[in-house]
């Protein structure tokens, strides 16, 4: 799915704005299933998403910058997810958190009648986080990736491979 950028661009100002945006991304309080528990764990004491400027979970889509789709998209919830996305003010981003949001995860079988196999069928997705459910560290990594997408610079060095 393609999203068109703004009609007028301001060069350097845009870069500055993006730097500001990247450092205070506000996610939406919207949990769907199992992955939502890991999303909550990420905001809690041990993993502390606040360190990366993204602790302000907003229940209203109009105040949010990005949406973490944390769970299975059923046929009944799909229009709701889509509406919530449309209610968000641009610029906006989406993280597909967990296998269900990526492709339907473990709930896909032949002739299934109730789930949408992947949230990218209804809204555009910026970062995919695999796992069932992904660990909280994975959500932090997703946030860093999103910040990288905005500013073009990775904020923290990529951890060294040790295997």
């Amino acid at each position: 799915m393609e999203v068109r950028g703004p009609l007028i661009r301001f060069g350097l100002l845009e870069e500055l704005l993006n730097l500001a945006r990247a450092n205070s991304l506000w996610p939406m309080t919207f949990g769907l299933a199992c992955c939502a528990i890991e999303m909550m764990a990420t905001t809690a004491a041990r993993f502390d998403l606040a360190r990366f400027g993204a602790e302000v979970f907003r229940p209203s889509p109009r105040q949010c910058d990005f949406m973490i789709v944390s769970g299975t998209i059923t046929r009944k919830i799909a229009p709701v997810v889509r509406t919530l996305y449309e209610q968000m003010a641009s610029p906006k981003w989406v993280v597909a958190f967990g296998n269900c949001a990526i492709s339907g995860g473990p709930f896909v079988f032949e002739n299934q009648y109730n789930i949408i196999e992947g949230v990218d069928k209804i809204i555009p997705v910026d970062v995919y986080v695999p796992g069932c459910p992904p660990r909280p560290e994975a959500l932090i990594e997703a946030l860093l990736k999103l910040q990288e997408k905005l500013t073009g610079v990775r904020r923290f060095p990529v951890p060294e491979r040790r295997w």
Partner: protein
Amino acid sequence: MVAERVVKDLQALGVDLEEVPYERRGYCFDGRVQREGILGVAEAFDQHGYFIEDVLCVDFVNELELVYHFNHWEDPRRFSIRVRVKPSDPEVPSISSVYPGAGWHEREIHEFFGVRFKGHPNLAFLFLHPEIEAYPLRKGHVPIPEEDRKVLEGRQPEGEEESFWINMGPQHPSTHGVLRLLLKMRGEFIEEIEPILGYMHRMQEKMAEVRTYIQYYPNTARLDYVGPLAFSMCFVGALERCCGVEVPERAQMIRLITLELNRIASHLLWLGTYLLDLGAATPYFFAFDDREAILDILEGLTGSRLTYCYYRIGGVYEDLNDGFLQKVEEFIGRMRKRLKDYDELVTGNAIFIGRTRGVGVLPKEMARRFGVTGPNLRASGVGYDVRISEPYAGYRIFGPEIAVRGGCDCYDRYLVRLDEIRRSLDLLEKAIRRVPEGPSRAERIPKKPPEGDVYFATESPRGEVGIYIVSDGSDRPYRLKWRSPSFSNFVSFTELGRGMLIADAVATLGSLDLVVPEMDR
């Protein structure tokens, strides 16, 4: 005993009753009745104080079988009452006038199987999407007929002069997931509650029929992701029961320890989020910190943080690792200290008491008619716990002490859960000293369960989880039905919430400790 008295009454009503071996089937009495007689049967059970456990349907292609499970708090011997109808004329009298809780199960059966319940007030869509073409759980393709579709599309909420409808959910921070309630309001007060479920209906029961037992097993942990081990235990236990597998004692004890750890983790999560709903942010961080300590221990043993797949038929996947028991012991010490903090921070807090004491009073009698179980029931003064009434895993060796409170309100539900954490810690302390040596897995495990049906119940942090499996002797279940505790607990809210302030509805809904995917299955 109550069971003998009710047996006499049922025989007088013309029920073909038979005693069956509990060790193999999971229920004690198996009865058959003509469809006209089911209302009388329900009344007889009601008079003797039975609660409705579950109503389910099995499609035998040429016949549809409805199974009603009744159980008693003081005399927990399960009755399984069956009614058979022809698919060409699937009409059964509704028992929702006697047991309103059963009405919700009937509504589910109606949309999944097409059984019509005569006298049911509302048979509209509850779980399914209105675009569905055929009954999902029927064998073969059975399209929904026009007249039934009209019933399913049901009544639309109508506006009346002094009342209005308000929509709560599916994206609402205090419904914990994707629950939607239509509330008919008169000013600040709720007049009527119309729940719309199924936003997280993930076809668990259909999937079980498509996959083999082993292929389906990992998904049991995704039903209730807050206390997944109770669900895994239920599935594994049911297969062990019908195959007659003996589980080694060491495995039983490992199961007990992991189940109790999981229970504490679940209650902590509830505590944090419930208080967050009521406006207290600090306990959330405390509770999650303690929960992480449990997850560390369980992750070391099972390999995952949330959706465990650790039990196996006949035992557990891996034996205890080094230092596991010591870590549990350290955790017990840490948690006991932490509980004092919770007491100081929350239990005596004037705002918390003001928002919860006397709010959401769930009387015993209402709990019985809706089939409420778990801590919610124990806060209404009933000491019913599956760990005691039908001991499984290590609870056969020593059972827990049950925490009971009689206040029936949100505050007591909070206290019961806090008490349960304490009792679980005591139980864990006893258990880690008595883990016997030996194998952690049975040697011989049959590949397929024998033909027949089996029921198995466990006590999850939310109440009684039940599984009913009908096997045709193949490697796939013919029908698998979950009795989810959150569903039974939640439907009581439709009566409980009537006449309540909308702000109290949030406090009450939170205190019931709902997990939506488990409710929607």
